[in-house]
Structure formats: structure tokens, C-alpha cells
């Protein structure tokens, strides 16, 4: 169990580490390239093997780094990634991607801000943490490192048909996932239209710290018997994707994707709780009395339509996309994204962008439950399933390199807001921020080789 003290990462430190990682990556690539040009730089057996490996396929890839940092000591993530592609004869490609995902910081546990200090039991059940009166309850006991490996093989099946198969594996301390996917892409003879159909199956195992909590059971004090059913849980997801792209004219291409996804099994967040508050008139009206573990349905059917367009203008290239998402939990969302790529010079491009996201809550979302109310069958106070909006302005700097390779730096600012003062708030809940804002700085560094 991770009980290391919280680390505070400042943006400057994050960027410095990111820059160092990219410099190291580019230096290593430059050294490798230098060895390719000067095979005599490493003598004998290894240079021979290296030349043999190099001639085995046409190699390409990308090295990238994601830094994510929320304000006020909340979630921080560092995520280096590398993709390597080996292209063989007849356009056969083997592609492998490795991602490391390191998470630290504090995350809302779902409990409501209260007029009194609140004490919560950690997921292990062995200790507790306290939130001051008026503060957002945050669980800072999780530290997580995830490793994700995916690999795929694609090849032409005929002059206009291409197929691919892939495998995806991810592991972290409380979650293991294994998935398979396959797709077919058919191009028209004139290559102006393409159709894609893809299928994916993913099986996940959830081993919650301290054991899977019994849904809707009360959170017990630390050191006492916890409400756990003592078993691991599983989740299966089936995805279907139908897509098409169409060249409209010399300067315009569009894409449309229809996605259907069906998940079944354990869909709860085992670490999220819901506040039961005092709804009787009196001095403690609105104060938290106890907490229960959330419960979501054990099935979810998701549908989305994604439309994208790329237009070349004299000044630059405009990319716009829209996604409509809905599911049988009652959630629906609209996502609009747009960016404009402008060439400052032959080597330098700049690309400002904006993403706007609006979501309406799932049917079983509630910010808290009054103690005289009947307990619903399903309930969550997870803000990620509530009514909310997120705006993300961004700027991307691109440095073009030889042979159509490039380096880029992207800066984004993610700002999510919800209903801080719902009309149902009573007593001590009034005047408090009941939907904590999320503000995060995001940086990407990418290098293609």
C-alpha cells in the first residue's frame, strides 16, 4: 500500500524533467543515427547485428511524453511512451507501443464538502485521513504506476483491402486488462473513399485495495471490520467501430465514425463514496452523518458519432471535429474541437486549438443523499458522471525535420466546472462549493523518427 508522503511537483520542475527526457531521447536517436551513418563507430559483432536489424525492416516510430498536473495538490501524472513501427515488404507493418503511467496526488473521494471536519477510512481499512471543515474531501493515499503494452500487425489483403489484428495489455496495482482487436479497411479504386470496420474485446480484472466494497454498504471506521466481499471483480467490454473517410476536393477531407460499446460486469469505482447527510431541521442540517460506497449498473451500452474535417486554406490548415456521445445510463455529451495549423516558416509551424466539452449527468448521479430518503438502488457522486463542462485551450509548436519527421511541444490548459450550488443544497451545504473545479496544466513532447 502506498503511504509515501505527497510529493509537490511544480510546473517548472515538470517541464524541466520533460525537457530532459526529450533531450535524452533525441540524443540517443541521434547516436543511433550516427551509428547507422558510421557503422565503424561500433566495431565487430554488434555493428554487424545492428546493420542486420536495420536491413530487416524499414523502421520508424515516435517517442512522447505527457505531463499532467492539477492545481491545489491534486492529481499529477507523468507518462512517457514510445511507438516503434517495422515495415516489411508489401506494406506489412508490425507496430508496438509501450506506455508508462505514473500517478500521484489527491483525488476527490465523492464525499460532499461539509461544515464540520470529516474523517474517512483509507481503502485498506487500516488507517484514516481527515478533511477540514469547508474543504473538498480528497483521498491522497493512492500512488499508481501503470504499464501498457500494445502490439499490432497490419497488411494488405488485396489491392484495396487492408486488415489488422492487435493485442493490448495493461497492468497496475489494482487493475489488469487484456484486449484483442481486429479491423478491415476497404478503399475505393480511386482512393477517395475508405470504409473501416473494427471489433475489439477487452477483459479486465479489478482487485480493489482492501477488497471490493459491498455496494451501498456504510464505510466503517479504520481498524474495524470493513464492508468488503473479499473477491476480485471482472469486466468485459465489446466494441464495434464503423468508419469512413471521404476526399471532397483537393483541399478538403472528412471522416465519420460510429462507435458502439457494451460493457458488462463490475463497473463501479471501488474507491468512491456518497455522503449521507442530516436532512432534519436543526443546527446540523446539511452536515455529513455517514458515507456509503457507490453502486452503478452492471451493464452499459455506449454509442457515439464522431465527425471530423480537414480544410487547407491559403493561410493554413483547419481541423475541426464533433463527437456526440450517449449511453443507457442517461449520460450524453457534445465535444467540439478545432485547431489551425499555420506555417511560420518552412521548418516551424504553430497550431492554436480549443476543445469544448459539455456533459449531462447519468440518471443515478446525486451530490449526496438525505438520511430520511430511501437508499436508491444505484447512486454515484463521482463528478466525472455529473453535469459539467470543460474547456481546453491549447498551443502546439512544431519543428519539421528531415525526411518528414518532426518534433512538437503542446501546452494545454484543462478547466472543468460543474454545478457548485445546486438548488437542492440545504443547511450548511449552502454557500459551499459542491462541485470542485478541476484545473490542470498539460504538456506533451513528441519526436518522430
Amino acid at each position, binding site marked *: 500500500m502506498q503511504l509515501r508522503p505527497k510529493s509537490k511537483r511544480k510546473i517548472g520542475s515538470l517541464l524541466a524533467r520533460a525537457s530532459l527526457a526529450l533531450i535524452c531521447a533525441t540524443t540517443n536517436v541521434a547516436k543511433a543515427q550516427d551509428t547507422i551513418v558510421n557503422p565503424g563507430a561500433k566495431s565487430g559483432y554488434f555493428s554487424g547485428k545492428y546493420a542486420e536489424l536495420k536491413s530487416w525492416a524499414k523502421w520508424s516510430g515516435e517517442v512522447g511524453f*505527457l505531463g*499532467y498536473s492539477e492545481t491545489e495538490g491534486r492529481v499529477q501524472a507523468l507518462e512517457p*511512451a514510445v*511507438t516503434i513501427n517495422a515495415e516489411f515488404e508489401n506494406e506489412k507493418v508490425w507496430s508496438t507501443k509501450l*506506455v508508462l503511467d505514473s500517478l500521484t496526488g489527491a483525488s476527490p473521494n465523492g464525499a460532499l464538502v461539509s461544515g464540520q471536519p470529516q474523517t474517512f477510512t483509507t481503502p485498506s481499512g487500516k488507517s484514516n485521513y481527515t478533511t477540514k471543515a469547508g474543504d473538498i474531501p480528497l483521498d491522497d493515499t493512492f500512488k*499508481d504506476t501503470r504499464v501498457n503494452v500494445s502490439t499490432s500487425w497490419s497488411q494488405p489483403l488485396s489491392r484495396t483491402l487492408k486488415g489488422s489484428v492487435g493485442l493490448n495489455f*495493461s497492468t*497496475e496495482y489494482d*487493475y489488469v486488462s487484456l484486449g484483442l*482487436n481486429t479491423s478491415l479497411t476497404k478503399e*475505393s479504386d*480511386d*482512393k*477517395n*473513399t475508405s*470504409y473501416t470496420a473494427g471489433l*475489439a474485446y*477487452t477483459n*479486465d480484472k*479489478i482487485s480493489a485495495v482492501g477488497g471490493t466494497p459491498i455496494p451501498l454498504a456504510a464505510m466503517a471506521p479504520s481498524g474495524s471490520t470493513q464492508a468488503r466481499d473479499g473477491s476480485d471483480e471482472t469486466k468485459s*467490454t465489446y*466494441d464495434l*467501430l464503423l468508419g469512413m473517410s471521404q*476526399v*471532397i476536393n*483537393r*483541399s478538403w*477531407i472528412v*471522416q*465519420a465514425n*460510429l*462507435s458502439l*460499446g457494451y460493457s458488462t460486469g463490475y463497473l463501479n469505482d471501488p474507491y468512491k463514496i456518497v455522503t449521507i447527510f442530516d436532512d432534519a431541521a436543526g443546527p446540523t442540517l446539511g452536515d455529513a452523518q455517514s458515507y456509503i460506497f457507490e453502486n452503478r449498473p452492471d451493464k452499459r451500452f455506449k454509442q*457515439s458519432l*464522431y*465527425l*471530423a474535417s*480537414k480544410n*487547407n486554406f491559403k493561410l493554413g*490548415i483547419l*481541423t475541426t*471535429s464533433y*463527437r*456526440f*456521445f450517449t449511453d443507457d445510463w442517461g*449520460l450524453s*455529451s457534445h465535444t467540439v474541437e478545432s485547431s489551425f*495549423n499555420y506555417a511560420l516558416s518552412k521548418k516551424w509551424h504553430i497550431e492554436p486549438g480549443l476543445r469544448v*466539452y459539455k*456533459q449531462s449527468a447519468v440518471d443515478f448521479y446525486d451530490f449526496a443523499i438525505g438520511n430520511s430518503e430511501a437508499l436508491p438502488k444505484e447512486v454515484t457522486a463521482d463528478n*466525472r*458522471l455529473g453535469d*459539467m463542462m*470543460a474547456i481546453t485551450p491549447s498551443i502546439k509548436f512544431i519543428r519539421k525535420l528531415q525526411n518528414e519527421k*518532426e518534433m*512538437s511541444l*503542446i501546452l494545454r490548459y484543462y478547466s*472543468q466546472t460543474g454545478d457548485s450550488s445546486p438548488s437542492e443544497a440545504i443547511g450548511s451545504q449552502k454557500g459551499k462549493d459542491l462541485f470542485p473545479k478541476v484545473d490542470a496544466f498539460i504538456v*506533451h513532447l*513528441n519526436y518522430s523518427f
Partner: protein
Amino acid sequence: MRIIFLMLSLMLLASCSSLGVKPWERDILSKKEMQFGTNALEEGFDDHTYFSKEGSSGGRGFSSGGCGCN
């Protein structure tokens, strides 16, 4: 249902013979910025970030999960 109808309508759009270009008219379309899916690592980072903080997922590709973050 409406989503499926809209998708079918878009597919019918592709049957319009006036759309598209000849092979020698692909100069602009060959630019990296004019192609879909050429920033796979960047898009993967974005998809992961957004579905960790929001209730929606997918669209560009499979509605990937594979982690305990959503």
C-alpha cells in the same frame, strides 16, 4: 437510432461521383496535417486524459479503457 441514420446518410454522400480528386491532384492531401491518424501518440495521450476526467470515451478510435482511471 438517429446516430445510425446520420451515419448511413454520410455513407451515401460518398456515392456522389463529383467528390474526390484525380491521382495528380493529391499534392495538398499528401501533407501530414491533411491526413487523419498521423498524430497517434498525441491523440492517445489526449484520449487517455479526457476519459480519465469525463464520462465519455472513444470517437476517433475504440473507446479504450484498459485502466482503472475511468
